[in-house]
């Protein structure tokens, strides 16, 4: 009955193989087997959204899924945000937004809020306030009253748009070329984006490509 099964998850771009009992929740696998404690457990009932992660680009509550069900999937947790191309080796615009707009007080809900915000902006780069509130409606915050969380996500949307619109993407390459100066790329110019201008190739870390 307690047989463990080997599963492979591509977590934040890196393939990780672990052995889990079928009853192990994905959130416990992430926190305890993979030591990624940025994903929080708030309510244990599927209500609060603190455990939100992206599985194959979709936000789900990792306390309502068994780890074996995510076998073969790509998982993005808050720890992976800084490694995304748009972060250019620094805080992701969403993380920057929560910092700039005071989008957290105790911080417990923040990882889930950031991942819910990430899923929204992937689908809809220019959301209005109602769309933001709908996207985070499965995430509870007991400190902020949500106002600043909405502003934080608006900040990120604006920042991402500004970076994309900047001439030649200057705000990203300036920072990215510093971050990857020693990667041995023989491209003269590196914009830091996956599969572009000498940026890292998809799957370069042995991980599968992220869509």
């Amino acid at each position, binding site marked *: *009955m*307690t*047989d463990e*099964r080997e599963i492979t998850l591509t977590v934040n771009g890196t393939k990780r193989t672990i052995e889990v*009992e*079928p*009853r*192990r*929740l994905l959130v*416990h696998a992430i926190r305890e087997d993979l030591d990624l404690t940025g994903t929080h457990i708030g309510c*244990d*009932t*599927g*209500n609060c*959204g603190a455990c*939100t992660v992206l599985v194959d680009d*979709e*936000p*789900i*509550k990792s*306390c*309502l*899924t*068994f780890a*074996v*069900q995510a076998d073969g999937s790509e998982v993005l947790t808050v720890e992976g945000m800084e490694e995304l191309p748009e972060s250019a080796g620094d805080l992701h615009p969403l993380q920057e937004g929560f910092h700039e707009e005071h989008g957290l007080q105790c911080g417990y809900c923040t990882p889930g809020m950031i991942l*819910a915000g990430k899923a929204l902006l992937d689908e809809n780069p220019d959301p209005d306030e109602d769309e933001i509130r*709908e*996207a985070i*409606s*499965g995430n509870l915050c007991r400190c902020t009253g949500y106002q600043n969380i909405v502003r934080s996500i608006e900040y990120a949307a604006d920042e991402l748009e500004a970076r994309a619109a900047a001439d030649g993407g200057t705000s990203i390459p300036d920072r990215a070329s510093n971050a990857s100066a020693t990667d041995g790329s023989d491209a003269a110019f590196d914009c830091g984006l996956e599969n572009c201008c000498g940026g890292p190739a998809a799957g370069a870390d042995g991980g599968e490509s992220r869509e």
Partner: protein
Amino acid sequence: MKAAPFEHHEPSTIDEAVSLLESLERPTILAGGQSLVPMLRFRLARPETIVDINGIDELDYLEEDDDSLRLGALARHADVEEADVVADRYGSFADAAPLVADPQIRNRGTVVGSITQADPKGDWGSVLLAHDGEVVARGPDGERVIPADEFFLLPYDTTLEDGELVTEVRVPTPATREGSAYHKLKRKTGDYAMAGVATRLVFDDEGRIETAGIGLTAVDITNARAREAEDCLEGERPSPELFESAGELAADESNPESDEHGDALYKERMVDVLTQRALGDAAERAGVVRTVTP
């Protein structure tokens, strides 16, 4: 809380799943898991074996053919929200999908799972009833088609038999002059309905109501039809007075219980109001001039 240990089986075909369900001792089927996983964690359910159907690709569809809109057992609430065919032609489904739970849960939870769980507060059972839908189950003896009217027995209990797997739910494709709607009252995102009403109206060439379907959520021991309200509509032309009568009848037929969300009388009044609104929307969507603006 952690679930008690269980054996996890992952069939990749319907046939494989059905033979597992036959051979295993009291198995439980896991689809979206958004209700089952908490029940396992709190050990309200403690099966020894779980048949996880998420790997059965042939169950993952939402499609319309000449006769029906068909939802396979792996069609998620979010799939309904995103489907163009639903947005264009199935108002009640389009209304209900975004009102289920919250965005994360809609990405995983399934329509078939929700109906099969038979929680009287579930939204989809009412929609299925209003549309005269069907539940398709596969068991050791083959396929069985169960009319929605004959599916729900008690809270969390249906006429499914041991060893049967629901593969699909389906509703008839809309007639030329048909409209449907779903209205739900709840305090906030993620809550179950305090009351919900699904309606479907089919009109004849002269603008009379030929068929009416009304399904009620959270106000009886199962999702239930409001038959007297349906009867009072059929053969009549839509009017505010007619929809008021139907609302009153639906309220009379409902059997809500008082709880922390409201007392029974309040919920009955809400059934009345929601019925009138959902009938108004259905009539409007059928192309009949809106007659009620409650």
